[in-house]
């Protein structure tokens, strides 16, 4: 088994005024050659956007972009004609493929939106762009790991162009569980949204991240009420 831990306070940070972002991995002008990616997981940004502000229309290609609102509402528009508002318990995925334009704005003028912006390298380059979003029931992840992203179209989770599975869990204090990898050779990156957990005997707190690979399953214990996001991705 191999592991890597990224403590919350070691993340890259960029404050653009309207946007306050913490980068678990190198992004934009934050560059640390030892923190570029975890397997196919390339970007894990913890973004807080001021009321009414946002990312103006800009292009992307060849990236699987997952947005997970943690609080507040995010308004999405793209060049495929999609307009949507995503909020807590929604998961949005944009497969940029051959190229799309999109904008993401805080829907509300009077409160901030906090969301995770996650980029995963695509399994296949230059696919037809696509957009999807789904709403998940929070009660279905109490002391359970709820799959929210998967590579199987039509099954649980939004579909991703990669052999990747994302799961959310709201774990009560002292609850223990095991996560078994879906695919041999994959690794899992655990990001603590809130609370405290122990993963493979390593303690993690809010916004800490831990990658684990060269193993088939991991043990998770909630040391306090905790919310976790697990991102299983290919390592090569």
């Amino acid at each position, binding site marked *: 088994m191999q592991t890597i831990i990224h403590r919350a306070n070691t993340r890259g940070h960029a404050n653009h005024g309207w946007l306050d972002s913490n980068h678990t991995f190198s992004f934009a002008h934050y560059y640390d050659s030892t923190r570029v990616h975890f397997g196919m997981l390339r*970007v894990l940004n913890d973004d807080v956007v001021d009321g009414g502000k946002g990312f103006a229309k800009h*292009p992307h*290609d060849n990236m699987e972009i997952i947005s997970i609102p943690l609080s507040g509402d995010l308004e999405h528009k793209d060049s495929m004609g999609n307009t949507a508002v995503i909020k807590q318990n929604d998961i949005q995925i944009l497969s*940029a*493929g051959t*190229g799309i334009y999109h904008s993401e704005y805080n829907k509300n003028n009077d409160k901030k939106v906090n969301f995770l912006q996650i*980029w995963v390298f*695509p399994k296949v*380059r*230059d696919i037809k762009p696509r957009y999807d979003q789904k709403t998940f029931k929070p009660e279905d992840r109490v002391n359970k790991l709820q799959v929210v992203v998967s590579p199987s179209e039509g099954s649980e989770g939004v579909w991703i162009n990669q052999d990747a599975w994302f799961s959310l869990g709201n774990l009560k204090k002292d609850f223990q569980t095991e996560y078994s990898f879906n695919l041999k050779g994959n690794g899992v990156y655990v990001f603590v949204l809130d609370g405290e957990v122990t993963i493979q005997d390593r303690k993690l707190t809010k916004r800490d991240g831990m990658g684990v690979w060269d193993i088939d399953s991991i043990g998770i214990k909630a040391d306090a009420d905790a919310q976790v996001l697990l991102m299983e991705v290919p390592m090569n």
Partner: protein
Amino acid sequence: MQVNILVIGRHTEIMEVILRLINGEPNWQAVGALADDKAIALFNEQLFDIVLIGGGVKDESVATLTNRFKAKNPLIKIIKHYGGGSGLLFNEIQDALS
């Protein structure tokens, strides 16, 4: 030291964004090619440190271009660009330079 970058892609608007971003950085200079012929012509005319291959360039083109470029300059760094914007662009170039 100036870093000269050849950007190859198929998406006109993304190419414009990438060139604008790179050329906005001090000491980085980029030109773009939307077609393989243009890329080869530029490579023959100018000295480049990095070739950045963006979206839409098929594997066969990548292989052909790589062979042509490496034959002319064995030290050329050829990297694939992902994301089509500012997010990874600077990191990818930094990575290539380091």
